[in-house]
C-alpha cells in the first residue's frame, strides 16, 4: 500500500504547468488527490512524474462573468460548498456538494479533479451535465472551450488530451427564482451513489415551465441528460402528474449492472429520484405539486 517512486513538481504558473505536462514522460496531474492517491497507493496507477497544481493561483477563484459563474478548476469542494456566490447563483451545485464524499475529502478534493476523474457515480459531473457547463482546457497549445456533453465521453473517459488540464468551469446562471433538486441513493452518507438525479426548473406565469434540465448519474457509464423528460415538461403547466409522467423517461436510460446494484434496480432508482429532484425543483420555484 505504498505508491511507486516518482518525481514531484509544484509549478506556480499555468504556463509552467502546461510545459511540464507537455514534456515529461509518464506524467499525471495531482489536483486534490482524493481519487488519484488511493489508486497510486494500490499501484493501479504508476507514474514517473506528478505535477501538483495546488500552487497555481491562476486555477483558483470564483467570478460572475456575463451571466455565468466561472470557477477555477483547483477550487476545493469544501470552499465551493460554503461559497455565498455558489449558493446564490448555482444552488444546485451547493446542494450536490454536500453529498460528495466526506468533509475530510472535500477539504482536499477539487472540482476540476472530480470532472477529470469522471467517475460515473460522481455528483459534480452530473451537475455539469445538468447545467451543460463549459470547460476551459489549457495546454501549451493554448486554451479551448468544450461543452460538458462533448467533454464526457464514457466510463471514466474525457476529451482531455494527455498534456491538457482543466483550467476553469463555467456554469450558466439560471433566472433568479428558478428551482433546483438533487437526490441520490447511497448505502451510507458519503458512499458512491447507486443512482442519483439533478434537476433545474424555470417556471413562469400559470406554472408553465420555461426551461427544464434533468441529469441522472450512477445509472449509465456517464451522467445522462434525460432529454425526453425535459421536452415533456417544457412549455406546459407543471404538477405532480406532469412530473411523474416526465420522469418515466429516466427508465429508458441504458443502465450498468455491477455487484452493487443490478441494472433494473438502477433504472428504478433513476425514475424515483428524478421525481423527487423535479418535485423539489418545482417547490423551490414556487409550485407545490
Amino acid at each position: 500500500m505504498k505508491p511507486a517512486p516518482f518525481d514531484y513538481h509544484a509549478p506556480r504558473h499555468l504556463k509552467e504547468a502546461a510545459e511540464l505536462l507537455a514534456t515529461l514522460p509518464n506524467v499525471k496531474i495531482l489536483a486534490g488527490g482524493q481519487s488519484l492517491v488511493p489508486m497510486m497507493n494500490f499501484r493501479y496507477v504508476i507514474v514517473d512524474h506528478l505535477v501538483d497544481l495546488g500552487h497555481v493561483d491562476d486555477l483558483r477563484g470564483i467570478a460572475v462573468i456575463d451571466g455565468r459563474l466561472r470557477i477555477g478548476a483547483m477550487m476545493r469542494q469544501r470552499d465551493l460548498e460554503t461559497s455565498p456566490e455558489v449558493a446564490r447563483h448555482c444552488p444546485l451545485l451547493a446542494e450536490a456538494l454536500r453529498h460528495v464524499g466526506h468533509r475530510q475529502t472535500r477539504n482536499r478534493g477539487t472540482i476540476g479533479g472530480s470532472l477529470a476523474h469522471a467517475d460515473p457515480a460522481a455528483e459534480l459531473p452530473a451537475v455539469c451535465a445538468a447545467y451543460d457547463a463549459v470547460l476551459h482546457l489549457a495546454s501549451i497549445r493554448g486554451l479551448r472551450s468544450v461543452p460538458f456533453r462533448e467533454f464526457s465521453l464514457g466510463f471514466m473517459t474525457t476529451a482531455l488530451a494527455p498534456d491538457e488540464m482543466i483550467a476553469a468551469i463555467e456554469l450558466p446562471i439560471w433566472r433568479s427564482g428558478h428551482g433546483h433538486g438533487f437526490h441520490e441513493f447511497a448505502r451510507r452518507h458519503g458512499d458512491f451513489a447507486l443512482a442519483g438525479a439533478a434537476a433545474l426548473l424555470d417556471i413562469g406565469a400559470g406554472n408553465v415551465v420555461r426551461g427544464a434540465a434533468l441529469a441522472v448519474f450512477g445509472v449509465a457509464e456517464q451522467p445522462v441528460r434525460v432529454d425526453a423528460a425535459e421536452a415533456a415538461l417544457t412549455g406546459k403547466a407543471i404538477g405532480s402528474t406532469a412530473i411523474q409522467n416526465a420522469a418515466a423517461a429516466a427508465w429508458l436510460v441504458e443502465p450498468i449492472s455491477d455487484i452493487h446494484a443490478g441494472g433494473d434496480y438502477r433504472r428504478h432508482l433513476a425514475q424515483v429520484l428524478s421525481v423527487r429532484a423535479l418535485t423539489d425543483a418545482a417547490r423551490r420555484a414556487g409550485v407545490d405539486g
Partner: protein
Amino acid sequence: MGKQATRITVNGKSHARVVEARLTLADFLRHELGLTGTHLGCEHGVCGACTVLVDGHTARSCLMFAVQANGSEVTTVEGLAADGELSVLQQAFMDNHGLQCGFCTPGMLITLTELLRDNAEPSEAEVREALTGNLCRCTGYAGIVKAALDAAQRLRGGTPSQPSPASGGGR
C-alpha cells in the same frame, strides 16, 4: 527518485526533512517524527483513522504526500492535549465510553475537533454525518456520538452529562 526538502510544522514545532516524494504525510508523521498516534487503517482514504488537521482543516494523511504539506501547519492527536491535560473532547470520550480498542480514536478526535470548532451546537444528526468518514469496527458509535454531544455542551459552558454506566449501552 526525487527527494525533496520539506518543512512541516507539527503541533507547533517545525521539522525539516529531505524525503522521498512518494512518502505520505501519515508515514512522515509516524516514521520520520515518531508520532505514532496517527493510525493507518486502510491507506486508501476510506477508514479515516489517519485524519489530521492541515492548516486547520481535516485531511486524510494517507491521501497526501508529505511534500504537499511543505510549509503547512499540521495538528495530530498528540497536539490535542495541552501540557498533559486532556482536551474537553478527549475527556468526554473517556467519560462516555467513546472508545473500545482505540484504533479509530485519533481520527475520530480530529474530525470532531473540527466539527466542534465550526459548530458549537451540533445536532445528533450533524455529529453522525460528520462521523461518516470515520469507521469504528468495535461498533462503538453510540458512545462516540454521546461523547461529542457531551463535549459540545461542556464547551458551551454547560454541565457535563452523567457518565454512562461502564456497560456502555450500544456496543
